[in-house]
């Protein structure tokens, strides 16, 4: 954070401003993947305990979002996409966001420990630490690989959901983690390709800024190629099944095709059509993740009727 005194809150923040500090869009991904991790686990959980656990995992994710916004307020003020966030917008003071984030972190970890188990609570605490300290404070401003390693923070929620049910880690939960972990770089780099000016202005070493767009396009293809075996491989474990494998094969073929189209494009061509392909691949990548986890859920939901799984 460059200058903590450059942002002063007016004290007029509404409920929505505090809610937006929790990054609700990211939170929805956390809720969905954690829920799938919990529901596909082989151990049953009481519905209220499951609901409470998902809520506390989401709250922990939101808390890390608030701490990230506190730390990155100077970057947010420069980027068009984030200029109206509560801190650069002057509606919430940085210190207030820090206190809010720390308090919610403590509440979410303690409550998850009490509601589910202390292993999942420790995992949540580690995830918050990883996102705030390892990603936001350390990697984001120092390396173009920020997205790759930092993406782990967003990949932990299904493992936490699984840990809520089982109290541990297994090959299935690691594969769900690996799926999101490998998906994050091509997803964000596709976004960075049509948001370059923003990241440059904020001096964030995105791959597009440090290595150029051609190299970023190649990186997207390499990661989608590495992602495919992970995504399809997960289908041959206890959480997969024929439906999941079919969905994964189709989606990965489409993702690789999209990445291939991105690689083949020249910058002038992309600029001329307003980054049409890049935007399309970015939108598809969201659907890609949603459908993979939806397929895991479908396999688990069909099991009682003898249809899901192998």
């Amino acid at each position, binding site marked *: 954070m460059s200058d903590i005194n450059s942002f002063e809150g007016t004290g007029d923040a509404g409920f929505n401003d*505090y809610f937006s500090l929790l990054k609700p869009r990211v939170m929805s991904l956390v809720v969905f993947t954690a829920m799938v991790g919990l529901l596909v686990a082989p151990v049953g959980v009481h519905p*209220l305990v499951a609901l409470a656990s998902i809520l506390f995992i989401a709250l922990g994710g939101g808390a890390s979002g608030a701490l990230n916004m506190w730390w990155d307020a100077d970057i947010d003020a420069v980027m068009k996409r984030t200029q109206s966030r509560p801190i650069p917008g002057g509606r919430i003071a940085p210190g207030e966001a820090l206190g809010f984030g720390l308090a919610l972190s403590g509440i979410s970890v303690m409550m998850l420990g009490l509601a589910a188990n202390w292993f999942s609570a420790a995992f949540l605490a580690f995830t918050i630490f990883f996102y705030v300290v390892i990603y936001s404070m350390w990697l984001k401003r120092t390396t173009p690989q920020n997205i790759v390693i930092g993406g782990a923070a967003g990949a932990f929620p299904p493992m936490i959901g699984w840990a809520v049910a089982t109290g541990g880690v297994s090959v299935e939960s690691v594969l769900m983690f690996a799926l999101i972990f490998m998906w994050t770089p091509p997803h964000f780099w596709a976004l960075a390709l049509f948001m370059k000016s923003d990241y440059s202005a904020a001096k964030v070493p995105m791959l597009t800024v440090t290595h150029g767009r051609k190299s970023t396009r190649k990186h997207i293809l390499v990661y989608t190629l590495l992602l495919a075996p992970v995504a399809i491989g997960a289908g041959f474990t206890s959480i997969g099944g024929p439906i999941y494998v079919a969905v994964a094969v189709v989606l990965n073929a489409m993702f690789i095709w999209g990445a291939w189209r991105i690689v083949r494009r020249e910058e002038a061509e992309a600029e001329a059509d307003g980054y049409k392909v890049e935007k399309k691949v970015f939108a598809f990548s969201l659907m890609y993740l949603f459908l993979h986890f939806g397929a895991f859920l479908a396999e688990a939901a069909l099991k009682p009727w003898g249809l899901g799984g192998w």
Partner: protein
Amino acid sequence: MFREHELHKRRFGRNMGLGIVLAVFVALVFGLTVVKVTEIGEKDGFQGVTGTAVLPGEATR
């Protein structure tokens, strides 16, 4: 006549939101407590007081 202060008007939404969040939190903790107590009861073969199904000396009687 009583006139509502402008500050109260502005903060109404925020206070109401916080009130609802706290109410939901209390309800959730109450629900969790009921579930946990019931689960402990089921595990211990609940017979009035948890963990005292058989007191020392009573088994031989």
